């Protein structure tokens, strides 16, 4: 194919190639789609080859067209096959194949996957909606937790107060007890002191008489 295209860049071959697409219907005398303004075969056949070769104004294009129209059967058959607009049973077969493909793809792809995607979308939407609901629930739970905390704090504060009061009372009681004890001991001690004082004073009194006699004896020499 490549070499053909390369060759077709030359004008002679390009005409030959292009006419090869369209000259086939001419040969078969079948009306077909696009027909370029080529001279009709009948007109060409009436011409004689010598006259053609002798004419000086034979253009390259005309030459190639004539060679094509005079082509031997083998070449003609080959050119005949070069048909771009060749409609045949392929067309209805392709239609049937397409319809088959459509139903098959619908069964294995479009319907199941579409259904699956729609269901998933619905499920996700549902979940999203339910998530909104749980946010309210979370709020309620938070409030409950806060209430419980508040109650617990109040309870603890009450217990603390109570305990403080109790301990204070106890302490005061003990303090009062201690004070009483101390006072009693103090008074006892004071009483003891008084007793001792009196005893000493009594003993001193008796001793004073003796001492004063002694002092008098000593001072007054007799």
């Amino acid at each position: 194919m490549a070499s053909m295209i390369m060759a077709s860049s030359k004008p002679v071959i390009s005409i030959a190639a292009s006419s090869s697409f369209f000259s086939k219907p001419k040969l078969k005398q079948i009306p077909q789609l696009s027909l370029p303004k080529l001279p009709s075969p009948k007109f060409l056949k009436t011409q004689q080859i010598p006259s053609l070769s002798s004419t000086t104004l034979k253009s390259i294009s005309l030459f190639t067209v004539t060679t094509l129209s005079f082509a031997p059967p083998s070449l003609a058959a080959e050119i005949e096959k070069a048909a771009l607009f060749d409609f045949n049973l392929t067309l209805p077969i392709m239609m049937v194949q397409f319809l088959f493909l459509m139903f098959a793809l619908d069964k294995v792809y479009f319907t199941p996957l579409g259904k699956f995607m729609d269901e998933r979308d619905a499920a996700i939407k549902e979940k999203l909606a339910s998530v909104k609901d749980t946010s309210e629930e979370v709020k309620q739970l938070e409030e409950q937790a806060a209430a419980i905390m508040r109650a617990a704090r109040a309870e603890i504060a009450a217990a603390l107060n109570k305990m403080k009061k109790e301990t204070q009372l106890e302490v005061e009681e003990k303090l009062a007890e201690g004070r009483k004890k101390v006072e009693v001991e103090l008074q006892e001690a004071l009483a003891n002191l008084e007793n001792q004082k009196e005893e000493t004073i009594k003993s001193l009194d008796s001793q004073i008489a003796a001492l004063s006699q002694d002092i008098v004896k000593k001072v007054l020499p007799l």
Partner: protein
Amino acid sequence: MNGISNALNGLYDISGVEVGQHFYWQIAGFQVHAQVLITSWVVIAILLGSAVIAVRNPQTIPTAGQNFFEYVLEFIRDVSKTQIGEEYGPWVPFIGTMFLFIFVSNWSGALLPWKIIQLPHGELAAPTNDINTTVALALLTSVAYFYAGLSKKGLGYFSKYIQPTPILLPINILEDFTKPLSLSFRLFGNILADELVVVVLVSLVPSVVPIPVMFLGLFISGIQALIFATLAAAYIGESMEGHH
């Protein structure tokens, strides 16, 4: 004379130009283009096989293959919805198959090494580079939009031919012929021309230079598939929408 014909013969032998040449099979006395059928079977096998493998066991969190097919399906749905409107649902298989078949066909012509397989005559190429394929698809599109209009509006569908004025009746009727004609020839011409351009460039400069043109060909192939599917959807949508 003989010399000339021999030279031409030799030329044809050397050239081996395969444009417009077909590998014929006879089926019940009718001729078919075997190369088109063979490549179209490969395309159908690729499509069905990959779809079955990727969609066989759909996961909530899609795997790579499933993700790709989901993306393609979303894309097809988007195209159908844009062109047809809210009632696009039943037409997704038609539009989607149209797009996928043409797309994979076009790319198979550019990417698959068909040349490895030698045929006695003609050569394997994209199925869309044969006029039979494109005309078949275009005619199916015509049938589809007629069916869409008739099933939606009954015989009232034909009132669109005399709208906005009865003067336009010939043009409206002509449209029904130009639509499949333009659809089929656009696709056929683009794909054939693309392959020819690549071949010409390869023959002139065998390396590096044809590569951008090959990429352009891939791009054009995709665009053509999209255009065909979009236009098919547009025609269907047009025949379904209300004419006030």
